[in-house]
């Protein structure tokens, strides 16, 4: 008898432990997921932006052919499978059970329409920066099979597809398409007010299963403290794009709020103008690097909200070395010695260009720390804080010396940032190393992922030695989740957070 009582007590105890969480996680069928964003959703055209926030919102309305999962592997989406019979041919087999929000079936003709629109000069898509040129030949084999023929091999092609929403060929050609966009995604368009909100409702006919949330409401809350306050007050369920480092400890666990820290695809670094003296001297570039106590800046200013960058790409980007290099040591004496060898025993004066509008958090404090540390080895820094459009124009003209910048590889592939920052002679830092150029070009052309990784490994070693840029931070996102929100998987690219499985409880 006593034994039975014990069993009953144990069972009740277990029930007591297990039942509430199960109840607590029952989706509210009429639930609205409320997201607070810093950045404005720039446009409803999925082909004329390069903004992570736009992708995040657009990917509730649209699907790509392939997904990149949170581990960085390519998995089926609108394409069930694909083949790569030779380095310049891709064959996609498409899902047969997909409908657009207006009820039209999805077929290979929609994919062709999407790519034709992307390559049309009238669309003027900035996304073409990561598509092969010229336009591949697109052959519709049948309604559910598509063949792509490239002129030269382009290894990151599937990752380019991951960033490309498939548009409907019928509705997409209508002039009011961008006012009433239609896609195949789990949510359908309701309202978009630029700078204020974007609202999408559940699409019952979604091919991946009926979405659990009834509605998603993205609100633009530009001020960081107000965004955190909205999460604390229970007005929003998710802050996907970063919480100020000093707020993290304060709100963690408060009122059921949890903070997820996720490695991102972004790196932040100092771009040195390699075409200008004294930065055209490797010893000077290395001296700048040795003079910086990067770990001190990460611990003291960034409050460990970022990692230490030890490769040209982030640790969540394809190309990251299996065995990364150790970070360069902080050694001001060596910096002074290198400056003496390079003919600058008394240092020099440099302009440090930084964006003023807080594109990257704590830019101003980091600038001051770098100013002090470089000052200690004789490099006098004048901080020039310019708003972004003016700063970009200066960098594009080559009229800069040192500039703090970042690169987010939205495709989670190093090819994009490599093209912008290291591939000569058109790299932003004006670095032009024939060996690096050859390796980077080979890495884009060769199909075998292992061969690509080998190329990027070697590039990383050369760039560490040559120091065309000074690597600072390996990006991380600090994401705030409210107690009602479940089923959200945040991705290193931050795209694709709210899908059919996301829901809020009552």
């Amino acid at each position, binding site marked *: 008898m006593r034994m039975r009582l014990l069993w009953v007590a144990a069972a009740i105890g277990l029930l007591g432990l297990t039942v509430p969480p199960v109840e607590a996680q029952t989706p509210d069928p009429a639930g609205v997921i409320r997201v607070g964003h810093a950045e*404005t959703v*720039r*446009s*409803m*055209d999925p082909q*004329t*932006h*390069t903004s992570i926030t736009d992708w995040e919102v657009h990917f509730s309305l649209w699907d790509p052919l392939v997904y990149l999962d949170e581990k960085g592997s390519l998995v089926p989406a609108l394409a069930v499978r694909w083949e790569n019979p030779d380095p310049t041919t891709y064959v996609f087999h498409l899902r047969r059970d997909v409908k657009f929000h207006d009820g039209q079936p999805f077929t290979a003709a929609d994919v062709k329409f999407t790519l034709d629109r992307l390559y049309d*000069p*009238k*669309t*003027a*898509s*900035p*996304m*073409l*920066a*990561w598509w092969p040129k010229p336009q591949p030949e697109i052959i519709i084999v049948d309604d559910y099979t598509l063949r792509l023929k490239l002129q030269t091999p382009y290894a990151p092609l599937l990752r380019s597809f991951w960033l490309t929403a498939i548009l409907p060929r019928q509705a997409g050609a209508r002039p009011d398409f*961008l006012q009433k966009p239609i896609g195949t995604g789990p949510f359908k368009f309701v309202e978009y*007010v*630029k*700078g*204020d*909100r974007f609202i999408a409702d559940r699409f019952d006919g979604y091919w991946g299963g009926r979405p659990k949330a009834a509605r998603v409401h993205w*609100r*633009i*809350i*530009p*001020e960081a*403290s*107000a965004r955190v*306050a*909205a999460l*604390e*007050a*229970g*007005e929003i369920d998710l802050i996907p794009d970063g919480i100020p480092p000093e707020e993290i400890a304060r709100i963690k666990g408060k009122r059921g709020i949890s903070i997820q820290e996720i490695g991102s695809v972004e790196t932040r670094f100092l771009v040195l103008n390699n075409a200008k003296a004294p930065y055209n001297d490797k010893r000077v570039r290395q001296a700048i690097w040795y003079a910086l106590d990067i770990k001190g800046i990460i611990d003291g200013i960034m409050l460990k909200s970022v990692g230490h960058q030890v490769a040209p790409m982030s640790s969540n980007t394809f190309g990251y070395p299996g065995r990364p290099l150790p970070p360069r040591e902080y050694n001001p004496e060596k910096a002074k010695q290198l400056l003496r060898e390079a003919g600058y025993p008394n240092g020099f004066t440099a302009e440090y260009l930084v964006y003023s*509008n807080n*594109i990257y958090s704590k830019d101003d404090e980091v600038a001051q720390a770098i100013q002090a540390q470089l000052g200690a080895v004789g490099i006098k820094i004048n901080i020039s804080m310019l*708003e*972004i*459009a*003016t700063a*970009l*124009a*200066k*960098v*594009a003209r080559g009229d800069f010396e040192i500039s703090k*910048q*970042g690169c*987010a590889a*939205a495709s989670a592939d190093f090819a*994009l*940032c490599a*093209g*912008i920052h290291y*591939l000569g002679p*058109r*790299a*932003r830092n004006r670095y032009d190393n024939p060996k690096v150029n050859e390796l980077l070009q080979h890495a884009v052309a060769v199909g075998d992922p292992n061969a690509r990784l080998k190329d990027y490994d070697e590039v990383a070693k050369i760039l560490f030695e040559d120091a065309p840029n000074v690597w600072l931070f390996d990006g991380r996102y600090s994401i705030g989740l409210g107690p009602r929100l479940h089923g959200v998987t945040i991705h290193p690219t931050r795209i694709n957070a709210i899908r059919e499985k996301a829901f809020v409880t009552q």
Partner: protein
Amino acid sequence: MAIYLCRRLLHGVFVLVAVSVIVFTAVHLAPGDPALMMMPNFGGTLADREILANIRQRMGLDRPLHVQYLDFVSRLAAWDFGESLHAHIPVRKMLGERLGATVELTVLSMVFATVVAIPLGIASARRRNGAVDVFGRVLALLGVATPSFWIGLMLIMLLAVQLRILPTGGRGGWTSYILPTFTLGIQQVALITRLTRSSLVEILRKEYIKAARAKGLGDGRVIWKHALRNVLIPVITVVGLQFGTLLGGAVVTETVFSWPGIGRMVVEAILNRDYPVVQATVFVFSLLFVVLNILVDVCYLYLDPRVRLT
């Protein structure tokens, strides 16, 4: 009266033509390129010249400047400001959505400010160095000296996060208007209280007030009938000008309370070099300023018979 108004209107038209030239020139001469702002990772690669050229062509920026100006002005005549370079939305629609929110907030906070400040100013002037006066002076000092973002954030922390009686921001039900209206209005309260008090103190020393008192009129009648009309002239001037300033200058309050107003829109547009949005906003603001100035002048006519229609 009609001739006076016509003259003022013509003057206004001249101002607006000048504004259209200045804003167009300033926007196009400012360093920065809207096409570059659309490229991956702020600027893309230097190799993407062809893509940049396509974007500039789509935005119509490849045309000569005078052609772009004439296009801008001819559209203005039809009250058409073109499309946002980034969002593909007619600027008129964006202005409509945003201007309403800003005008609402500005009107409410000015109403709040005048309703609180004028009686407070009068009470302070009547009992100088009394309790109300000291309170009014402290309030005025705090209101002027405290930055609005700080007041806004403190109010959010207290009333929205701790007590949960008001929303943190956004523009929804009537409760969402309270905090932004108070935050924007409190500085105006400070200004208008000070102004009403000092004007009234000065006027109460005038001969005609003494004469009115000598006639045996009561205190209330002296103030309401004889002093207030004169006090209101500088107050209305300041309210009119502040109204115009707040329309464009409420950007801090709009940002703290994520209020979808025009100030935030234009700051974003400037940062992204969204030329049509910047041009249209500056133009519409100038138009509002001109209209408000004319209205203030018309108010003078009624308040002060000495202002002649010259």
